[in-house]
């Protein structure tokens, strides 16, 4: 692994396939628990803590394992973090990939042109060739990992829940930094284990929770919900379902166009237009996973997710779905108050199930 050249990425819209096709290892960069203090001197303090924490990682010299970093125009914070990273961190290759915020033919065509440009930039910088064959192979491998992950998600529809939600979430999270080959092996093993679990007939299990929101990199919320006596059955986050759902067409004559269709046409995120579409997807997840309650969470200062929250809460409640909205600081450091709120929420869910 020491000769492996790594390209970091920060958003589910970054096309890992192109990086893999270049013979480089795509790996998600996350600030995790990095203190944001140093970042405040470089980027405004009222910015999303995911941006600040990840920037802090770079400023503290903890992203030197990366040979490159690809940003996408996810949001205002990411756009500006790109400027700061390029200026003050000094990673060898820093790239801003344009990802439209609209769907539709013009957007897909434009995005495909940007994907080609990105591939070309990687070729130039790293002296590699991205051939149609290598790109198609990368698409197949990435799809394979996605299919396996989707299989595990499918298993989680069972009542009672076969696998702890925190474990499944961590499995996906781990995969964001592994080679596709290694990740596939791990997923195949995990699938075997998962499929061997035989649900106890007649067991109604625990209250079933869907976590929805933007980015979570730590297990605290899962632990709080599980400790309160509920199960996390589905996870609609950038670092979970939104990353693994939907496949790229493997038989397209133009793999860049196929990638553009998958990323732009299929992924549902608050950065895109289509508020109602996102709500519908959430409602579908509620039905498919027999969800009793939704925990909608957003990191502080994320305008896109914070602004959606009241509308979603109102609409889901109209549908009879219990919702708990939690604004978080990304580090999930202060769990004391959260614990009380989560416990109260699970208690309500339990009482409604009786």
């Amino acid at each position: 692994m020491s000769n492996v050249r790594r390209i970091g990425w920060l958003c589910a819209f970054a096309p890992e396939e192109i990086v893999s096709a270049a013979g480089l290892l795509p790996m998600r960069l996350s600030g995790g628990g990095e203190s944001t203090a140093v970042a405040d001197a470089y980027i405004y303090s009222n910015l999303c803590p995911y941006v600040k924490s990840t920037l802090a990682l770079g400023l503290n010299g903890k992203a030197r394992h990366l040979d490159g970093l690809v940003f996408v125009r996810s949001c205002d914070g990411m756009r500006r973090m790109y400027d700061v990273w390029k200026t003050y961190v000094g990673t060898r290759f820093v790239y801003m990939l344009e990802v439209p915020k609209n769907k539709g033919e013009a957007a897909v065509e434009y995005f495909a042109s940007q994907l080609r440009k990105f591939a070309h930039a990687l070729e130039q910088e790293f002296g590699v060739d991205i051939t149609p064959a290598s790109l198609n192979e990368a698409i197949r491998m990435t799809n394979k990992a996605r299919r396996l992950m989707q299989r595990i998600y499918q298993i989680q529809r069972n009542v009672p829940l076969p696998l702890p939600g925190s474990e499944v979430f961590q499995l996906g999270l781990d995969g964001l930094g592994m080679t596709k080959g290694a990740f596939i092996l791990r997923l195949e093993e995990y699938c075997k284990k998962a499929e061997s679990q035989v649900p106890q007939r007649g067991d109604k299990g625990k209250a079933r929770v869907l976590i929805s929101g933007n980015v979570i990199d730590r297990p605290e919320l899962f632990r709080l919900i599980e400790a309160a006596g509920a199960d996390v059955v589905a996870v609609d986050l950038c670092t979970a379902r939104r990353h693994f759902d939907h496949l790229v067409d493997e038989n397209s004559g133009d793999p860049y166009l196929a990638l553009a269709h998958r990323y732009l046409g299929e992924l549902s995120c608050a950065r895109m237009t289509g508020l109602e579409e996102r709500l519908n997807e959430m409602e579908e997840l509620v039905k498919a996973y027999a969800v009793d309650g939704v925990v909608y969470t957003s990191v502080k200062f994320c305008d896109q997710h914070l602004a959606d929250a009241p509308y979603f809460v109102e609409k889901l409640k109209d549908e009879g779905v219990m919702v708990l909205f939690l604004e978080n600081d990304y580090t999930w450091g202060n769990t004391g108050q959260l614990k009380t709120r989560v416990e109260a929420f699970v208690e309500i869910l339990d009482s409604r199930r009786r």
Partner: protein
Amino acid sequence: MLKIFYEGMKKSAEEEFQRRPRAWLMYTIQLTSTLLKAFEDDAKVVWTTYYSFPMELLAAFDVVPFDFEIGCNLLPGVDPKGCVDIMTEAEARGYSLDLCSFHRLALGSYFLGYFPKADLLLTTSHFCDGKTKTNQILARYYGKEAMMLDVPNELSKESVTYVSKQLQGIAGKLEEISGHKLDLDRLQECIRASNRARAAYGRLAELWKTKPFAWDGSRLCNLSIIGNMFSGTPFQEQLYQKIIEECEQRIAEGKVAPEEFRVLWLAWFPAQRTNINEIFRQNKVSIVMSELARVYWDEVDEKHPFEGMALRCLKNPYVGPIEQRLAGVLQMVDEYAVDGVVHFSSAACRHANASFRMIMDALVARDVPFLVLDGDMSDQRNYSAEGTWSLLESFIEVMAVRK
């Protein structure tokens, strides 16, 4: 309530205009008249973003443009306390205090039924995440379509085509709303009006270089945002021409305020009532230019109106990498011979604030004093008059030492 407020503003501006036919009154009358049209039953009202959407396209369809940010953020200058009550309506429904006060005020205004109707809600992606999101939410509440002109962060043949195609799609939607087909001759006429206004604005921006500064700095900031609502109409050129005449007259008669320090203003000027103007007046400081007041765009090619309008969007200083914004800032620092630069950082204005360090480093390298002035556009709960006083006075001292 907003309608009554606009009527009052219009009436007092008209009465004052009878006594003193000044440009600012002319502007206020036109602004309030346009906003009031949005309340007329037969009006086709398109909600938009005055300062970033190519308004020429709306002018070509004769629809009434209404910007929910501007529409309700005329209030904080008059009744900041009342605005807190309006924002509270949104906050009580779960809209986070971390969201921009511009948007909380708009959402609160909606919940209280202050806004006019909307036939289409149209905005752009480059100003800012909060605006696009609020636009979508309001569209859902109204049960109307939300459209977003997505402006990429890079300027290329492909991005011009992409934006241009979207504008053509929007034109199709405007045909539906207005009930008539796009008249290309009319669009070209609007583009020509906009180009003439651009030329007049360029002359005005030249006049602002004169020492001492011959106009009003906070009005300059205001005009750089709201003035764009008239793009594509003959009024815009008339307005700029009238301001030019007034500035020239002031210069000729020596009726300009005493000036010791010249400041370039970055980002927005607060919509709420503040003590900034008073502090500057007492210390003989002029805001001589605002970064959004710069003529950053080229003449729009009337033969290729959609590509031309797309180019204008893509050349906006807030689009693209920081170098694009920074180049404009440094150019103004030189051209306007400023003594210092102030960046007003409204708490939730992330797309502007996040670049403060790079701007600061570039200015420090040129030995130009720079201040990040924290505050809030419209929420008086996040604005400290004492803190502002203390920061600005210290900054003025620094400028004095450097002089």
